[in-house]
């Protein structure tokens, strides 16, 4: 990493005046890009949130609709994230310990949700689970509502966050191979014993990393959830949807609620950095 810097120094002794000017201006330009594109929007959220004072901020956050939105967001994440955690583990177990036909296709399918527009994802779910969708009549006959209700929000969230855990675990488990699991098997360990005592401890940090990113996206998803929620205030509004609805009525209140999500983002990025710093070798940096 340092080699380039060292190279210039070793070739020419002290870097020349023009090299230093070029370097400083490049750093300055990059900093300007980051401040302009990333820092300013982040500051703007908190500035707008507190523009009308702390009392207003608290009132906006503590109004019943906002609290209902917080509760719904937590509920959706509490269902969708564990579902994806298990999915990631199961998919990684299948993909790394077995050879079977269609493996490449399965891998491609696991990655697919990241390249589909969230809005298109939500629309596809309506085509299946909506009132006039494939399963609509059957679901209605059995008294189940998926779209415009909690199950739809969970499905949409699972869709957009599906690859996070699997993508993190598959390369790691691939590089670790199956030898230790097979050794445990010959020593008489059962399937669950192998999983909990051999596999899981070796992938725990990568698992945590995947879950962290999955959770951040689950709580912040907008497009896919927007389409399937019907945005019924106090009923099917998650936090991002509440932000959207408040935005048209009460600018500062929208930013107050948005600042909660921004806080979650900053927290997530902090933990992410910590994990990368402590356990970087086991992690595959994701987006």
């Amino acid at each position, binding site marked *: 990493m340092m080699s*380039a810097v060292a*190279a210039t120094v070793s*070739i020419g002794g002290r870097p020349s005046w023009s090299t230093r000017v070029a370097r400083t201006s*490049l750093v300055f*330009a*990059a900093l300007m*890009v*980051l401040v302009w*594109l*990333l820092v300013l*929007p982040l500051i703007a*959220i908190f500035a*707008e949130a507190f523009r009308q004072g702390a009392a207003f901020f608290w009132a906006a956050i503590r109004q019943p609709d906002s609290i209902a939105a917080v509760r719904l967001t937590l509920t959706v994440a509490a269902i969708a994230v564990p579902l994806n955690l298990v*999915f990631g583990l*199961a*998919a990684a*177990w*299948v993909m790394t*310990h*077995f050879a*079977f036909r269609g493996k490449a296709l*399965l891998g*491609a*399918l696991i*990655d*697919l*949700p990241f*390249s589909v*527009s969230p*809005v*298109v994802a939500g*629309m*596809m779910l309506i*085509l*299946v689970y909506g009132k006039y969708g*494939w399963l609509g009549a059957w679901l209605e006959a059995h008294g189940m509502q998926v779209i415009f209700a909690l199950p739809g929000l969970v499905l949409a969230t699972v*869709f957009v966050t*599906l690859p996070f855990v699997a993508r993190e675990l598959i390369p790691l488990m691939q590089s670790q191979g199956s030898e230790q*699991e097979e050794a445990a098997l010959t020593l008489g360990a059962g*399937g669950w014993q*192998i999983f909990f005592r051999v596999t899981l401890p070796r992938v725990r940090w990568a698992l945590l990393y995947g879950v962290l*990113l999955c959770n951040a996206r689950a*709580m*912040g998803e907008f*497009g896919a959830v927007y*389409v399937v929620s019907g945005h019924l205030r106090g009923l099917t509004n998650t936090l*991002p949807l509440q*932000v959207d609805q408040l935005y048209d009525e009460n*600018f500062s209140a*929208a*930013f107050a609620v*948005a600042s909660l*999500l*921004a806080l979650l*983002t900053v927290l997530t*990025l902090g933990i*992410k*950095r910590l994990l990368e710093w402590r356990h970087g070798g086991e992690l595959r*940096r994701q*987006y």
Partner: protein
Amino acid sequence: MTRHVLPGFRLSAGYTLAVLGSCVLLPLAALLWTACELGPAGWWAQVGTRRVLASLRLSFGAALLAATIDVLLGLLVAWVLVRYRFAFRRVCDALVDLPFALPTAVAGIALTALYAPNGWLGSRLAPLGIDVAYTRLGVLLAMVFVGLPFVVRTLQPVLESMESDLEEAAYTLGASPLQRFFRVVLPPLLPTLLTGYALALARAIGEYGSVVFISGNRLFRTEIAPYLIVQKIDSQYDYRGAAALGAVMLAASLMLLVAMAWLQRWTRRWAVLR
């Protein structure tokens, strides 16, 4: 049937397929079915309208431009973060992930607040005759925002692993800094830059939350394609129209996916050659 050494194949494969089936495969099939049912003429009747074509032109045009800008800005940021040591470098590095982690709706209203005519930046740009909020420039800006980290994060590991001996050799042979950059550094980065470009492009085309607030959704002018899909579903209950447009978006993302897989193979071959 193949015999497997380790247990748990049926259970884990079963759960994987159940989730994939209910969340991904069935919905995908439903979209393809609905789009195919329309037939070419029916499809064109939905997609060929002035409003839809204008939105597609904006979505793809702005995304192409935004990804290009992202490659330029991302190369600068990645280069500086990898090659130079300066104050707050770690903070800057962590900050690059912000557009990944910040909920899109939050990013959208933040950008709008900044660039609205009475916002911090908007009020300063207005006297210069530059309107960002509620124009196509705003759409472009939001797309640049969401795409930047893709370029930086794909470039960083490659830049870190790049040996500087070629640069040194070029230096001793009398190459100028610009020559060294364009003739020595840039060519091996090309596949990586293209991968970053494709990732940023894919994200920008499908992006909804960050864009719809700052775009203002003006008819024929600043409506993006995902916004029209939402409109068709939300207020017109026009699922076939939405599916027709959704099929176009899906086809674009699948094509990009294939292009990226191909790029990755190219990158790997390049790495072996080096």
